[in-house]
């Protein structure tokens, strides 16, 4: 029972990270039909920016250092993503493969630059003392970072749903996922919505970057890429363009991966997730959800 609770919550924490990456990917894909490989770069650059900023305020309390790291990561992730959309994606409008290719190039270039600048060794992120402690839930000692990551993901989920259901921009995004041309034909500048989903996706990815650093205790140049691949799987299983679908799929993938990695041999969980994807595709080529939120 204790083990199960621990695995469940750790899996949920992992799923929370996947969700933060996948939500942006899914919206970007839904609206623009762009598979954004640069998402891992947003994640990584934001994490390193947050880590560096937390180092700059090294004299401050660990709580403040951590908050600075989170704030900087979110801002840098959003800014990087916005810049990417405006400078690299927009000139390739109507060339979908070209758009995917520039994000591939950007991912390769950025990650290797980070590796060159900071080295490939993991960097320890300064954490407040309470985060490194544990909380006892049904007898299991749960690391507080797991709970923190889950809380952040829930908050982002709630914000995204509010944004999509209650704001005009959200309305435009939902309509654009269904039929972009018709949105334009109603006199709406879809381009602005493109930039906005990139900005939102980048902010969420940046948050994921620094929260992954919190969850694992360290940041390194390669994690963004490896998490991105699982986020892709989450996006497909959840149904492209659906934030709710991504949330459900992220939980399923994170928890399944955690349990199987523990009870099977190492790597069995990762492997099973890919198998799950294959099964989902064979049964329902469109993923679990067809809804536009």
């Amino acid at each position, binding site marked *: 029972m204790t083990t199960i609770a621990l695995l469940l919550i750790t899996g949920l924490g992992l799923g929370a990270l996947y969700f933060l990456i996948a939500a942006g990917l899914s919206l970007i894909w839904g609206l623009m039909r762009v598979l954004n490989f640069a998402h891992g770069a947003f994640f990584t650059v934001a994490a390193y920016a947050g880590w560096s900023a937390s180092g700059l305020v090294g004299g401050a309390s660990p709580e403040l250092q951590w908050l600075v790291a989170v704030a900087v990561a979110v801002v840098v992730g959003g800014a990087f993503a916005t810049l990417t959309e405006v400078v690299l994606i927009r000139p390739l409008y109507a060339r979908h493969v070209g758009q995917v290719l520039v994000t591939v190039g950007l991912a390769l270039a950025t990650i290797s630059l980070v590796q060159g600048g900071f080295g490939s060794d993991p960097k320890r992120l300064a954490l407040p003392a309470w985060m490194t402690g544990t909380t006892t839930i049904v007898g299991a000692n749960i690391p507080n970072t797991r709970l923190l990551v889950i809380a952040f993901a829930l908050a982002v989920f709630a914000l995204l749903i509010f944004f999509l259901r209650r704001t*005009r921009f959200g*309305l*435009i995004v*939902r*309509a654009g996922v*269904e*039929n972009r*041309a*018709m*949105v*334009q*034909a*109603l*006199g*709406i*500048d*879809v381009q602005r919505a493109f930039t906005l989903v990139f900005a939102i996706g980048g902010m969420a990815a940046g948050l994921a970057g620094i929260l992954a650093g919190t969850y694992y205790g360290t940041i390194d140049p390669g994690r963004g890429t490896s998490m991105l691949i699982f986020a892709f799987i989450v996006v497909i299983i959840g149904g492209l363009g659906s934030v709710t679908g991504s949330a459900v799929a992220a939980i399923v993938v994170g928890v399944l991966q955690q349990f199987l990695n523990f009870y099977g041999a190492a790597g069995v969980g990762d492997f099973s997730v890919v198998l799950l994807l294959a099964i989902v595709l064979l049964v329902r080529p469109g993923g679990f959800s067809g*809804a*536009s*939120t």
Partner: protein
Amino acid sequence: MSAPATLLAVRDLNVYLAESHILQGVSFDVRAGGITGLLGRNGVGKTTTLRGILGLVPRTGSVVLEGAETTKLAVHEIVRRGVAYVPEDRDVFAGLTVEENLRLAERAGAPLRYDLVYELFPELEQRAAQKAGTLSGGQQQMVALARALLNGDNRILLVDEPTKGLAPLVVRHVVEALRRAAEVATILLVEQNLSVAHSLVRDVIVLDQGRVSFIGDVDQLMGDAALARRHLGLAAAGSH
């Protein structure tokens, strides 16, 4: 009031899709006020003409709205100058409610005509919270027309086969709505149902294989069986 001025002038419109030359130098004028019919057999380029006016397909040539060239503008900028589109497949947003579909069409600064929309289509007010994807074909057509009618500063409505696939009773409803809509905006109407077209339109443009084959008065076309057969491929056109 002087004679109705030209609202929309299309000059030498050419559209290539893949390797096909769909529109081959289409030119015509749409007079301000009333309904102008864009007729012709299936596949002659009527829908492409409407999409070309809006910039939804890549095209060459010139489209002048109220004296101003629009060809260089983005789709949404053309629409904001008062061009509304009611596409053939309605293209309502299935996952959005009726009310959200209408709200999406609202344009900042334009006087909104919810009173007119709900007077013409009271059903839409009752079904405001219903997902548009669950509506009948006729109701979806109402949503599509309502989106185009909503903004008070729309100059011209491009309406593509609004009665296609609808039951006779619904067709009558749509025809009545179009008649009322023509009192507040100019309409360029693509219509396969010739009796509907005859009852609504004044000026007629006929397309044949990507070119304009006839421009004139509807009674002139429909009243002359030989002329109607030549341009529309229909024997019974004069019986209306």
